């Protein structure tokens, strides 16, 4: 018995070392980016000393700031649209059982499983066939199309823990259906809606592939700007933008998970 336990521990030691290496693999590139965003050298990978110069240059870089502004505009409007529509849909799908709900459930998963590039070129072709020229508005429309499903999945996860007796009680106490929704159901859904909205915002903020195909001329977003800069060569400014984007997204994600956890859902179920 004793020998077996010791045997287990040594086995787990090998596993632990392997897992540590896998985590190192996951984070080494990110650490490298952060490190070199502070490296006082334009050309190569040798360490030349600490500087915040590259971040300073970003703040004065007009095109980068324009791209950031576009990204924020798109993400804000698309998030509001996707969150409102997604929350309503999630409510309908969990609250009611009706004929055809299976079909709706299936439809929601299509944007999650379709290859992103196919989504991107299909939208481009669709806009083209409809004679719509590409603009910030078409980008917002495109972003909403891939964000809704994520919002629905997260709000639905929250709704699955809802006790319908609360609604019954509210109505027994004289509330009508709309008041019940507004005063009982909606407050319960709220953490799911906020968490889903934050996640949707991150997806829009970071989206490259769908934006790449549907941006047209002059609607550069931050990921598109990074892409075109990378095509010209590696610069410390790109590292600085990258670190900014990773930090910004991570903070929103952590906030989203925190809200979901506080509302009683373990972290694992949030992802899809």
């Amino acid at each position: 018995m004793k020998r077996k336990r010791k045997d287990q521990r040594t086995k787990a030691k090998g596993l632990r070392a392997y897992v540590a290496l896998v985590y190192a693999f996951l984070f080494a590139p990110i650490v490298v980016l952060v490190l070199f965003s502070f490296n006082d050298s334009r050309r190569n990978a040798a360490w030349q000393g600490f500087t915040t110069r590259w971040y300073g240059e970003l703040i004065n870089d007009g095109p980068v700031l324009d791209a950031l502004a576009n990204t924020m505009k798109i993400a804000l409007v698309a998030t509001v649209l996707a969150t409102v529509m997604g929350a309503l849909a999630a409510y309908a799908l969990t609250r009611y059982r009706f004929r055809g709900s299976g079909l709706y459930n299936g439809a929601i998963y299509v944007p999650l499983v379709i290859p992103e590039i196919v989504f991107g070129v299909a939208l481009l072709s669709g806009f083209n066939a409809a004679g719509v020229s590409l603009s910030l508005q078409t980008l917002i429309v495109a972003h909403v199309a891939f964000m809704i499903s994520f919002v629905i999945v997260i709000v639905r996860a929250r709704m699955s823990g809802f006790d319908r007796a609360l609604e019954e009680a509210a109505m027994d106490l004289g509330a009508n259906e709309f008041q019940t929704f507004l005063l009982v159901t909606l407050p319960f859904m709220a953490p799911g809606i906020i968490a889903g909205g934050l996640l949707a915002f991150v997806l829009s903020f970071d989206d490259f592939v769908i934006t790449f195909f549907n941006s047209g001329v002059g609607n550069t977003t931050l990921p598109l700007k990074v892409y075109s800069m990378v095509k010209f060569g590696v610069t410390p400014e790109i590292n600085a933008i990258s670190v900014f984007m990773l930090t910004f997204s991570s903070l929103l994600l952590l906030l989203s998970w925190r809200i979901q956890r506080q509302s009683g859902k373990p972290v694992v179920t949030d992802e899809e």
Partner: protein
Amino acid sequence: MDRFRGHSFLVANVLLAPTMLWLTLFLVLPLLVIFVYSFGGRGAYGEVELGFSLSNYTKAFSPLWLPVILRSFAFAGIATVLTLALGYPLAYFIAIYGGAKKNIFLILIMLPFWTSYLIRTYSWIVILRTEGVINTSLSWLGVISGPLDLLNTPFSVVLGLTYGFLPFMTLPLYASLEKLDKSLLEAAQDLGANRLWTLLRVTLPLSLPGVVAGTLLTFIPAVGDFVTPDLLGGPDTLMIGNVIQQQFLSARDWAYGSALSFSLMAILLVGIFLYVRKMGSEDLM
């Protein structure tokens, strides 16, 4: 009991209407458009000439382009196997030994999962390029005299795919290992199985739905990926995604690009459909 039942069908449909309208207009119809385009041809000015010809599909699988499709499947396949080799022990460790720090371990996997794929791919350029971290370090150490060609090779593309999709593999694996009844593992060991035998005969079969789900979630986006081969690859590492991008943005043969897109999607959706029929959708989402 249910006071909503009388008009629930109506209310539910009204609430679902905006989402379904949006998905119809901006997903279903666009997919129909590329489906129609895929039977057309390229006009003199790069516009799509509608028609009914299968030539785009025969072209996609012709000797000229078949290697691209095969390469996409090969690269994605190798990357999937590698993510499984890296991700399974990782998921197993978190599920069995994670303890109180389980959520921290998971968050460390989910952060890369949700943050910019573009930037995570770009980070490998910084590491692999001629003046990159590896070449600079190795020549400083005197190990190499000239820089190694690490970037724009099949190696860098497969590495990039493996790195990019590791979280996609690990999370469903974790979901299925987490559900595993730990007393079964103890039972196997009490009955005299060693740890390897327990792993092969108990843990692995029970986590098979997670393995298949992770494989699909990795393989599908990896086959169609174009960011990785575009940034980390070269002319001899073209994948389907690159060709689709070229047809739409530079060659302007949208009909052919549509046929490629549709073929890619059809192959993958059939794979998912078969999976869901066999295993259910639980571990996939």
